[in-house]
């Protein structure tokens, strides 16, 4: 039972001052084993804050990040799943499933976590799963101003993943659950 937090696009301090208070009260150290961050933190204090939640932190570089040494893409294996992280501004058209599927095949991962669109999505596409945790602070994106703060917590247990989606809608935290299994027949590459 491995808990993986996926979030990103906070744009602190440029577009938002901080994570919503309700999110911060839920995120306590000791529960989460890994953090995947899609990028656009943007500055070091956010990195330090995430480090206090969990020492195992994986970040990919967003176009506004002040730290230039984050990688463009990153892959890691947790349980039976291979996860990949990429900010997504490199993949054009932004948020396009087919292009993201190309990236997924390139990285050879089961679950691809990307951001940039600031909208939560979770799709099963061409044998893999693409998850976009949205923006954790609700910062405006290049596409739209109407953004709900959201992030994703994945519970990886062997061949199953349960994805908990946390969204702040009208000041209340709403939690949804998605679960899927990795079929033993491998993805078509």
């Amino acid at each position, binding site marked *: 039972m491995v808990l993986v937090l996926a979030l990103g696009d906070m744009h602190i301090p440029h577009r938002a001052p901080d994570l919503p208070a309700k999110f911060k009260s839920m995120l306590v150290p000791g529960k989460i084993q890994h953090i995947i961050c899609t990028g656009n933190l943007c500055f070091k204090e956010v990195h330090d804050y995430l480090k206090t939640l969990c020492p195992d932190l994986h970040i990919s570089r967003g176009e506004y990040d002040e730290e230039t040494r984050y990688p463009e893409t990153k892959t890691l294996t947790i349980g039976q799943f291979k996860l990949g992280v990429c900010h997504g501004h490199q993949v054009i058209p932004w948020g396009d499933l087919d292009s993201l599927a190309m990236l997924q095949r390139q990285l050879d991962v089961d679950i691809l976590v990307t951001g940039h669109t600031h909208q939560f999505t979770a799709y099963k596409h061409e044998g893999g799963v693409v998850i976009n945790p949205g923006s954790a602070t609700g910062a405006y994106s290049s596409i739209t101003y109407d953004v709900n703060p959201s992030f994703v917590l994945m519970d990886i247990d062997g061949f199953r993943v349960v994805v908990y989606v946390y969204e702040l809608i009208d000041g209340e935290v709403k939690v949804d*659950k998605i679960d899927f299994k990795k079929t033993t027949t491998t993805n078509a590459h």
Partner: protein
Amino acid sequence: MPRDRTKSHDRQRKNFPDRLGSLVLGSGLEETFGSDIGKELDTFQPHGFGSDREGLGDWEDEGDRDVDGVVGDGGEGCLGNREVIGTSGSDRVSVLEVIAADEKRSDLEYELSQEEINLEKLQRIASKGLPDGDGSRARVWKLLLGYLPPSRNLWDKELAENRQKYAKLKEELLISPSESARRRIEGFRSFEQESDSGESDGPLQRREISQEDHPLSLGKASVWHQFFQNTEIMDQIDRDLQRTHPDMKFFSGETPTSRKHRAAMRNILLLFAKLNPAIRYVQGMNEVLAPLYYVFSTDINEQNAANAEADSFACFVRLLSDSVDHFCQQLDNSAVGILSTLSRLSELLRANDEELWRHLEFTTKVKPQFYAFRWITLLLTQEFDFKSILRIWDSFLGNPFGVQDMLLRVCCAMLLCVKSQLLSGDFIANLKLLQHYPEINIEHLLHVAMDLTPDTSSYRVWL
């Protein structure tokens, strides 16, 4: 020493500690034998025993040297060299000893084969020591702890029921939240008759869930919240389990079997902590569990050994039921707490040997809190080697007045047996001696314990 004085009994007892003191120091017995002391020996055991004391003592030592954790002589898991040591030891034991052991064994077998087992007789047999290596110790302990009913034909039913109860408890309390979530999903899914593998591409289906049902929930009723609170206890239990009997392969090391044993013990301790939120887990409970779990898992009967976890849990709860208050810090100063028990020990010592009591309490100011705390809370598991612990626990469970009564007696006997060293020592020497109790002949210790005068000033009813 005239033997017809009323005080002779006392005097006689006072002599034993000295004799044993010399035994502890390793010297032979022969030079300490006087003519009349030899006569007094007759009332306890035949003369032949005296010369065999050495043999028995050595046997204990060789038992200690065994680092592979195979405590029984014979039975499963016996190594070649272990057998050699056993035979060389038995060469030195007299015929009388062998006959006595055989008699004991046949007595025990007879008793256990009855339809309706006489618990009192069983207690008497157990007090003399149970044989190692076959499954009888496991069965006798289960009977004496009240886990198995005395009627033989009810055994199977009771065992099956209890094991099932345990499995259910485990499922309720020890299941991880993601496991329980998964089961709920599967139930939900089968109800909807949706097949997961045939799902086509597209947005993944979202299901709304309640506020309590997610991992970051801070609600008290949330399964997840409780789970994270328990991980702290679990970490502590794990740390203690790693340190349980590090010299025994059964418990320590990284082999799959020892890991399995530690995992089983962790489940038992965690369940106990959850079911007793007032005491939770206290360091040391692992030591009390270890002999129980060991005896039950080395049972010859395959089915019993496989269910050792469930049986150990039930017996652990029963064993701790009258001493659990010792672990509760708030009850320390109350009438049922550890301090009260320690003062009872003190009174017992006073009733049996005022001189030693005075020396410890006032002259050297060695109070029971300094040495007996561990003796009492951990039921002497830290003071002797494993084989001796099993023998001592036979006597504990075989005492008709209960484990605690015998425990206090044995503690008092431990003090009496090193009396000469204590009387000649100061605070530091005595404390050092009592906190690292020297090796001793266990049978003798138990004899002294059985013969103690009970403390009539205590409020315990003496029938």
